């Protein structure tokens, strides 16, 4: 699991002289963001259940608003091909009393296409309420998106990331097949990750324009 290095793996990596993957970190420190002044705060990246830069996995790049809940969005996505679970990651958020909590989700993935690539979206909101409540955007669920290539199917090379492309594909599917209103790249979350990768962790390909797609759930 990215960011959590098991001891045997760490020993093996050191013995092999490999550099740690911690260098493959976000461009700026992870930040708690809000959609509106009185709205709930959540981190702009998912990852390990901490706040370290090295543990960040993918950028928040989709916001489901209106009448969204985890249950509702997942049920709808399952009907359009997002039927497989992935590996769990966490997203930090702040509760009304100021406590920082971490919600985890395995997300939903499409089946592997002929090219060996699937689309993976993880959805986060407080488990207690199944949604964030924002005075401006209503019931909100936040999502991270990425592509997985050769993740349990197909022939390598294994590649992960391309969040911008995953966001585009999900937005297309939601708009065309669910008929939900989609405003692409509508929210400037500030988590821009120019296309890049690092030699030490080259399977992890960053790419996000920092603008989340807003989906209005009826």
């Amino acid at each position, binding site marked *: *699991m*990215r960011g959590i*290095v098991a001891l045997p793996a760490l020993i093996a990596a050191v013995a092999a002289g490999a*550099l740690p*993957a911690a*260098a*493959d970190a976000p461009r700026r*420190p992870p*930040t*708690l*963001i*809000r959609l*509106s002044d009185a709205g709930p705060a959540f*981190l702009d990246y998912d990852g390990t*259940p*901490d706040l370290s830069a090295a543990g960040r996995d993918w950028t928040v790049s989709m916001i489901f608003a209106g009448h969204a809940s985890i249950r509702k969005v997942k049920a709808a996505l399952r009907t359009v091909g997002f039927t497989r679970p*992935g*590996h*769990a990651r966490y997203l930090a958020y702040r*509760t009304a009393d100021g*406590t*920082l*909590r*971490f919600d*985890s*989700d*395995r997300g939903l993935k499409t089946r592997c296409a*002929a*090219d*060996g*690539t699937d689309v*993976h979206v993880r959805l986060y909101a407080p*488990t*207690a*309420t199944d949604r964030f409540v924002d005075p401006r955007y209503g019931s909100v669920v936040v999502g991270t998106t990425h*592509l*997985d*290539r*050769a993740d349990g199917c197909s*022939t390598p*090379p*294994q*590649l992960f990331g*391309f969040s911008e*492309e995953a966001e585009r594909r999900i937005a297309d599917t939601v708009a065309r097949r669910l008929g939900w209103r989609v405003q692409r*790249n*509508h*929210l400037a979350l*500030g988590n821009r990750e*120019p*296309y*890049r*990768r*690092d*030699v*030490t962790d*080259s*399977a992890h390909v960053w*790419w996000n324009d*920092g603008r989340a797609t807003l989906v209005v759930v009826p």
Partner: protein
Amino acid sequence: MRTRTKLAGGVAVAAVAVAGAVAILGGGDTVSDVAAPLGLTEHGPFRIRLSGPLWNDRTLRDQDGSRDLAYLTRDEPLTIAVEGRDGARIASIGLRVEGAARQVLDACRGATCPTAATVTAHPALQRLGHGSHHLTVDVRGPQADQRAGVRMELTVGPRLPPVREGDPVPATAAPPPPTAYSADLGRRVRALVGREQRVGVLRGVLGATAPIFVQIGELGLGGRGVGVTALLELAAPRRNVRATVPGYLATAAGYRLQSVSFTAVELRDLLVDLDLRGGRVIAAEPGPASQTSRWDPDQAPTPTGAGDED
């Protein structure tokens, strides 16, 4: 009506013993995991309501079993309110932390036990160390079959560092900012790829037509920029491409080159890494839109870090 008359024992319990192991309520008893926001359970003869900071900071599980957790960085109070249903009376309220003996928080020693009681406990969870722990509240009546319990999951963890807080994010109709690389860099990368396509390591991969440069970005080496990584799209997909291309292994000193032989049933896109210090291609990999049937690095798996991702 609260008819609490006399439940002896401390109202506040400072610590829960952790020595000894007692099985959680025996057969036939009711223990429920509570995830409901209200902290209210109604099982058997008692209605149990939990509240307070410890309750608020409990670990929750969603339908998939995924956790929603807060780290307990100090011992916190838990308030337990019990009401007997259908006139059931309360003989004792107990608490058990995994592997420990039941700690009696309050017990009835009078002739008539109450039908309602409230106690506050301070379970000593910090001493258990970081990780997930379970705590059970159980209530017993005067009769042996009058028992009910509630179990919570809690996560003891580290104190978190301060986190940066941003301003509310603006909605915008403006297009996203363009990719941040200079025109000079773009020209240089196109020239290098073009050379490798004509006479170098990409000759058997890209064919004769110039590819589309979808993205050009930084190639880091332990966080330090050493070159460029480019996402190329072929002008037209190529079928049954068999080629040998460079790849690399990360090492303490940087990286070590290797060769990778591959077959692409259909090649639509290619990731190309260039080390600008030496002006050479150090890796080429079919991208997420390409279909491969063979991928054989001659030394070790590549790309790096592939085993710990999803």
